[in-house]
């Protein structure tokens, strides 16, 4: 299934997944979330994973980010295996290399924006300051607000600031605009694009909104736990040009 373009052949993939499956039980039901995924993600690229609910895109992202482990198959991050390694190493991997952005922001309500970012910078090896991270997402003015005092878009930008503050190699975003209106969503996507370009962070965005695919280097479609199609886009659009 791997469909590596010629122009990327010279590059080393950041992530390499091979034959990844994932099965889990939810209540009384056994779910085959992934049924054999082969995939590579390259340094600095902006990838959009598209798919309907239950297509397995979140599961794939979780496995790449070390939040979950594959049932079978291989996953490598910069030539380090992510399958079958102890929890301690997985923790270390998340701490140093991956930033997450979730659909529902998952901010800690009892901490201010600045403190929500600090919770990550305090344990990272070479972080930017929480203030710098918040400035990158345009929230310098609202650093001392609690999540409840911020709009949805602002909360998501705090979540992005929190994810990039550690200068991760990879930014994994699960439906970052899913809970936002289109105007706010575009503002968030602008921030993601800006980070991708200015810091060179490999960015993977999960969405079921096909329009977002227009701003990506590659669009990977998932269906029923398998990769259905991979598109290379040579002409990326700016987030501001998108609308839905």
């Amino acid at each position, binding site marked *: 299934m791997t469909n590596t373009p010629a122009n990327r052949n010279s590059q080393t993939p950041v992530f390499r997944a091979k034959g990844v499956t994932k099965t889990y*039980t939810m209540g009384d039901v056994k779910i085959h979330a992934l049924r054999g995924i082969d995939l590579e993600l390259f340094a600095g690229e902006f990838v959009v994973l598209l798919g309907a609910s239950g297509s397995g895109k979140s599961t794939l992202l979780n496995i790449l980010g070390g*939040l*979950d*482990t594959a049932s079978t198959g291989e996953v490598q991050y910069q030539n380090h295996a992510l399958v079958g390694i102890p929890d301690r190493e997985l*923790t270390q991997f*998340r701490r140093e290399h991956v930033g997450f952005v979730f659909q529902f922001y998952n901010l*800690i309500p009892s901490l201010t924006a600045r403190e929500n970012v600090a*919770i990550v910078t305090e344990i990272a*090896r070479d972080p930017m300051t929480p203030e710098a991270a918040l400035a990158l997402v345009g929230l310098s003015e609202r650093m001392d607000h609690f999540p409840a005092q911020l709009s949805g878009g602002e909360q998501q930008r705090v979540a992005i600031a929190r994810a990039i503050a550690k200068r991760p190699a990879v930014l994994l975003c699960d439906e970052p605009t899913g809970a936002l209106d289109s105007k706010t969503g575009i503002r968030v996507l602008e921030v993601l694009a800006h980070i991708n370009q200015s810091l060179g962070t490999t960015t993977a965005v999960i969405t079921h909104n096909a329009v977002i695919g227009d701003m990506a280097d590659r669009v990977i479609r998932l269906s029923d736990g398998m990769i259905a199609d991979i598109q290379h886009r040579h002409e990326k659009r700016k987030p501001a040009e998108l609308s839905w």
Partner: protein
Amino acid sequence: MVKALPNGSLKRKMLRELSGMMGQLVAIASVVAIGTMVLIISLSTRLSIAQSQQYFYDQYQFADVFMHVTRAPNDMAMRLQELPGVNQVETRIIASARIQIDDFPEPIQGQFQSVPDFSEPMLNRLYYRYGGPPQAGQIPQVVVTEPFAEAHHLQVGDSIQAILNGRLQRLEISGIALSPEHIYQLEPNSILPDYQRFGVFFMQRSALATVFDLEGAFNQVSVSIQYGADPHDVVSQMNALLERFGSHGAYLREEQASHRFLSEELEQLRILSWVLPTIFLSVAAFLLHVLMGRMMLMQRQTIALLKAFGYSNRQILTHYLSFSLCIVGLGLIVGTLLGYWVAEPLARLYAMYFKFPEFMFGIQIQALGVAMAITALAALAGTFSSVRKALIMSPAEAMRPPAPPSFHHHQSILGPMYQKLTPGTRMIVRTLSRHWFRSVIAIFGIGMSGALLILGGHQFNAVDHMLDHQYRGVFRMDLDVQFTEARPHRVIHELTSIPGVFFAEGYRQVPVRLHNRHRYERVSLSGLPEQPHLRHVLNQQMKSETLPGDGILLTRYLAESLQLNAGDSVYVETLVGHQRRLELRVAALVDEPIGIGAYMERVALNRTLFEDDVVDGAWLLIDATDPTVYQTLQRLPYIASIGSLLDAESDIRDYIQDTVLSVMMIMFFLAGTMTFAVVYNNARIMFSERERELASMRVLGFTRWEVLWVLVGELAVLIVIAIPLGWIFGAGFSYAMVSALSMDMFRIPWVLDMRLFAMATFGVLFAALLSIALISRRVLNLDMIQALKTE
């Protein structure tokens, strides 16, 4: 590089979250605080009394062996001194006398003890609160004990009158003092102090010797024992040496009245000091485990998030352990401070009946430390097990909303009724059965707290029951009149002929020591009429026993401590007059809650002792409205004391009220607080766990009250089941308590009154209503949008 301690942001998160859940925090902390308070109160009361006693004994040379003789020459003191094992010897004159005080018409019994003319006694020295030792002079001087002086408002320089060996004598008070022999100041043969009608007086040896014709002689000796010597050897040697001087038998401290009662009291407190805290702290530990566990489960998503950021398991665990340690720490600190604050006054109140020169408040720090550690560990274990559950999940799994639990249809159990239930009620039924284990634990917790209410309340009823039994069932007399010495039985006719006396019954009272193998007890053997009317001897069925023509009856508690049963033989050693050792058959056991005693038919007793038909006192039934009865009785020269049973009953009620019940009152209050804390916490956690679900119901169009019902209904079911469970636990706890508290002095019966159960039920219901009132505010103001957003 992995930091073990929670860092800045986590610390801030913890502090903000702690302040955000103030109600729950206070509830959990109060469970801990109450456990700690109970422990401190229990430990400090016992230790304070024990320390004060030890200090008094040590500083004022309380003797080890005591012995009464009829009359022994002074030079026997030298011989006693030479006995191996004897350290110091102090001979004295001790005699009884009637005291008269203006404004107090009732007879007062005085015990006169000699002190050396020109020096301090070597043993049983006095602590002078005011004034000093008696001096020789025109008017003989005496020192009185402080409780007597207080009861009659006597001061140094005041005078009293005493009938000393038949002669009325005016005495001047030179000092007011305390004696290690009379920390618990008791009239012989009674079990409670009566400071108005009994006093101890200290007079110069020479003055007392003259009055009682004991010049050059003594009638009591106290001895202290060398370190390491066997006290029983000293006792046998003293018995052998002084037998020919009319010895009543030497006895050790353990049989000395004041020491014995104090020891009993300390023993009772020792038991209380572990039974009560054990029950309270184990309930607290259980509740903490459950509460912290459930609270931590609600942090599942945050834990997953922290893991996603790369926090290590150790860091997350440390964070949550310090979180619960904060709550427990708060409880421990508040409990310790409040405990100290309450414990000292309470210990002093308890010690009110004991006269110490110095009350030395103290607490066993070690025991406190251990208990605190246990409490903290219980909370940490609860936290640990829940956080661990979240930690072993992969973060992705923990962050996913938990899979909808599988529910079942309940038509089969509830039948057609189920169809008629409202959706809300169906939710209650399903939730309870789905989370049955959690429900069982909650029921258990609420039941336990209700059980503490029963434990706390049990004593009140039981004490009433006990006193009713003794003062309505056993004692039927109005007055108890004791004679100066044994008198022929015909004196009863004389008493009956006094106007206002309806009925009189004579009794014998012989101090004896009962032996069964190596066990022995000093008690008073009472000789009663065959069919006593004024003092019943009750069997287990509460029926009055007839006294058999031979054999002896024993209080069940006494028989048990001597390991005797009906039909066994017991050795009886008389301690006055001609000392005899008799072997008697135990005819039956008697069930009395107060005191210990042995009973025989009077004529049989006198015959066994080779004495004529004599009596030592009489019980009277009188016309209470006739004031002349007292006056006539007082004029009779052979009457040593007149005791009113009404006074005795109110004295013992006061005593129990001031001691056991005042502690239990606090325990009851603490149990009530704990009940509230537990019920509130359950309700609060139920609300948090259900917040999204309830908000969804509101979104779907359920009314506020329908939504509230889902929560209240579930709590109601838990409480309805928990209440009877609490009754069972409570009955068990109180049984453990009364069994542990059985003493010579009194045995509180295990009485389970309907009122008790009603009270515990009311307590739990009240706590539930209050909790519901507090929670309903949150349910009624549920923010639908916010609640649904917080995924």
